[in-house]
């Protein structure tokens, strides 16, 4: 999982040029519409839309795949669990294990929906610098305390990951080997405790330095957002597609069709 999600934010594209505030709102509408879909054809349509947005954003596909693979790995077990445990009659038995097509359909639905949402999230946050995305959030009336905490945390994550790696190397150098035993758990607990203490002391220093330079809890920025007609056209397009998907899904031509599959 790449932590610097905005690594390719400099790549010029029509998605990158999209005003971050409007991009955030429009694609969030699309994400929530996708989450509410219930039929497979509509979810596949959503997948195509998300893929088109991602291709337009010109974020390297290898980077996207790296981000998305975790969620797919996490959801793979559903392909086995759901068909085998689906309540009601099984479509066929394989080696005495019941196998329900309806369960397979549900698993496919869940996994593709997840994929669409994660892909869209990558399109949003991968095509804009993280700090600018946070300023956009603030302009969208997100409480400033939340925005500040997100920015601080984002900064600290990289710091603590590096700290953790250093501590890990130090432990290995002293001959520590992780194993399934109580001793490992105790050491891991103390490891987390040490990480906490070091992090707190470091951030106290950072915070004092910030205060002494006049930090008063406000973000001053030279970033200006200028939403033009193009930005709104893109937003209307995406939201219209989301509404269309959801209404066709609810109207139900596919719900009936899918029931006759099995």
């Amino acid at each position, binding site marked *: *999982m790449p*932590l610097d999600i905005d690594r390719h934010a400099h790549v010029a594209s029509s998605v990158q040029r999209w005003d971050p505030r409007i991009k955030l709102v429009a694609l969030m509408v699309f*994400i929530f519409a*996708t*989450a*509410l879909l219930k039929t497979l054809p509509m979810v596949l349509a959503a997948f195509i839309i998300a893929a088109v947005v991602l291709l337009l954003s010109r974020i390297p596909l290898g980077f996207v795949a790296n981000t*998305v693979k*975790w*969620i797919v790995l996490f959801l793979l077990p*559903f392909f086995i*669990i*759901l068909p085998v*445990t*689906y309540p009601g009659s099984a479509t066929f038995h394989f080696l005495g294990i019941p196998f329900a097509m309806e369960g397979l359909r*549900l698993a496919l*639905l*869940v*996994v593709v*929906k*997840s994929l669409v*949402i*994660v892909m869209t*999230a*990558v399109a949003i*946050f991968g095509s804009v610098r993280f700090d600018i*995305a946070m300023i956009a959030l603030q302009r969208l009336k997100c409480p400033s*305390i*939340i925005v*500040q*905490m997100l920015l*601080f*945390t984002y900064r*600290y*994550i990289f*710091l*603590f*990951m590096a700290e*953790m790696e250093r501590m890990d190397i130090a432990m290995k150098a002293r001959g520590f080997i*992780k*194993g*399934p035993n109580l001793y*490992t*758990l*105790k*050491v*891991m*607990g*103390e490891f*987390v*405790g*040490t*990480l*906490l*203490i070091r992090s*707190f002391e470091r*951030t*106290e220093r*950072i*915070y004092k330095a910030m205060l002494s330079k006049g930090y008063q*809890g406000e973000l001053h920025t030279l970033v200006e957002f200028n939403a033009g007609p193009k930005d709104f056209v893109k937003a209307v397009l995406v939201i219209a597609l989301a509404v269309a998907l959801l209404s066709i899904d609810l109207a139900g031509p596919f719900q009936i069709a899918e029931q006759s599959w099995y």
Partner: protein
Amino acid sequence: MHIADGIVSGPVIGAGFAGMALLAAATMRNIEMDEIPKLSVATAVFFVASFIHIPFVVASIHLILNGLVGMILGKRAFVAIMLGVVLQSFFGFGGVTVIGINSVMMGGGALLAYGVWQLRHYVSIPKKEVVFGALAGALGIFFSGCIFALALVSTGDAFLASAKLVLQYHLFLMVLEGAVTGACAGFLAKAKPDLLAGQRKPQTS
């Protein structure tokens, strides 16, 4: 353990966000600016902790540590965990539409853990930080497992078996998290007790 996007139904998503708003409003009152660094550190450590893997017979599983966040931040733990979940969704880890339900699941567990942790003042046994830290860590995860299973069950009968698996996994995770959180609490009580929430100052005078 997260709920991913696309699993739970619309009403569950809605209920998750409603619960999150309620808990956030209740725990964020009178938040001061100089609390931000401490909250951010705990959020970042909560985030980073999900990269700590512990080997277990065949697989390796990662820590959640929501109980520990509760022990450090007290009631403010909910905000920290909520923002951790939000950040994870930005990275494509976790989910966007399930921010609400995931926050309630793990943040609620943190609040419960804080409640358990505070009970240590009523007993006097040796190493009570370790004992109550372990209890808080375990119960925080137990709460998360219950909410996770509840979300699955209320989505549909098809997920009943999955919910059972989730509960079993969390019961097992409880033991691990309890041990790690207990050890961490014992260590912090010795090394830097003012990091822990609700720590009483020794009587002077």
